[in-house]
């Protein structure tokens, strides 16, 4: 009687591929989910209106993350936005990074961020330069309207007029600064307007500079010369702003906190002043 030949394979049964494959896929899944997880950050805002979970975080217009959850702070004074930042955008979360809510701005002088009317608000990011960080305090206004840096001077005026916070300061119709908070003077006789000149233009302000409210429209009607209409840029006319000029013999640099009177309108002469001031040179 023939006996069947028994062959022993040196290889393990191919069914062992199942656990092997499982091991590879499960390990990849773990790696992908745990190590590649989005970076969690916390941003505190004074108000979270229009922000809900799922709202995007954008940098240069490109989505880099989204809001997970919004909670109130312990003292109910701020809202804390928990957001996750995509792994590849991790570098955006570092010290001095700026976060602000972008919302539509409509005004007679122009409209901004109209896309947010349709797509809803979003949170914009501006990367900082420090160490990686997880907790941030958000800005209430975009950084370009954020009058933090620069030469701070005080303008004293009889009336505030339309010089609201965030309006611009012009030198030769070029924006060189921003108007900050306004307060009444001690005796309530004047309004004190804080003006912030961008650091790069601070050398243009001298002790003998003159400031005037350039928001108005000056109409001068005379019998023989006809009507003369004077206004700076149309935007300025509509939104209100402050212009300044420095006499042909510029005085020493204006120091921080210096007070200047704010004239209601410009003298013709001021507009022609054209002193040479090297604003670009560094200290």
């Amino acid at each position, binding site marked *: 009687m023939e006996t069947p030949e028994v062959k*022993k394979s040196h290889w*393990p*049964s191919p*069914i*062992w591929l*199942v*656990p092997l*494959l*499982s*091991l590879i896929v*499960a390990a990849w*899944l*773990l790696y992908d*989910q*745990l190590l590649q997880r989005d970076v969690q950050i916390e941003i505190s805002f004074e108000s979270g209106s229009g922000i*809900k*979970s*799922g709202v995007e975080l954008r940098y240069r217009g490109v989505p880099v993350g989204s809001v*997970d*959850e*919004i909670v109130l702070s312990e003292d109910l004074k701020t809202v804390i936005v928990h957001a996750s930042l995509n792994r590849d955008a991790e570098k955006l979360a570092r010290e001095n990074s700026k976060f602000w809510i972008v919302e539509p701005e409509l005004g007679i002088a122009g409209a901004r961020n109209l896309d947010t009317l349709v797509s809803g608000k979003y949170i914009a990011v501006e990367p900082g330069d420090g160490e990686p960080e997880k907790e941030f305090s958000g800005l209430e206004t975009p950084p370009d309207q954020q009058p933090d840096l620069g030469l701070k001077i005080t303008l004293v005026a009889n009336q505030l007029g339309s010089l609201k916070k965030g309006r611009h300061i012009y030198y030769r119709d070029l924006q060189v600064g921003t108007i900050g908070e306004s307060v009444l003077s001690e005796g309530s006789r004047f309004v004190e307007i804080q003006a912030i000149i961008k650091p790069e233009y601070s050398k243009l302000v001298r002790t003998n500079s003159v400031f005037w409210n350039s928001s108005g429209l000056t109409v001068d009607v005379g019998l023989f010369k006809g009507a003369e209409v004077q206004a700076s840029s149309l935007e300025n006319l509509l939104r209100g702003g402050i212009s300044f000029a420095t006499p042909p013999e510029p005085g020493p640099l204006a120091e921080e906190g210096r007070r200047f009177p704010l004239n209601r309108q410009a003298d013709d002469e001021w507009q022609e002043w054209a002193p040479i001031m090297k604003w670009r040179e560094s200290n």
Partner: protein
Amino acid sequence: MRDSPHALSWSLLVAAMVWLIPANLLPIMTITQGGRSKTSTIAEGIWQLFEAGMPGIAIIVMVASLLVPLFKVLVLAVVYWRAPGETDPLLSTRAFRLVYWIGRWSMLDVFVVALLAALVEFGNLASVKPEPGILAFAMAVVLTMLSAHAFSPKQLWIKTIPDQRGV
């Protein structure tokens, strides 16, 4: 183990064990409620139930989702391990039958997540989204069931049949 007649059962069981790790470490679902999203693993879900003041349900979920899958895998491992020289075939058979019987109920978690994901879909108001952990859980459950199915409990009784001894 290579020469074991249970190679198929063993390999599927090992695969199930492998899948149990991501099943317990990864989130199984994301619940969005009133604008708040919460992504939780099995253990986190149990803890949330405890904190929400529902210890009864928490214990049920812990037993059904955390302990039973582990228990099944461990019991099968012991049964397979002892099978070649089983001295107490009755006990082993009972344990095996128990695990085999539980098997049909094990997809409950997956079923719950699948149902919730399909039914609770009200955008930001409330929605449930499955996460990769539930996939790993389903893999572990299916592989455990297949492993048990591939095993023949008759093997446990070989030693008790005199004719077959030594074959």
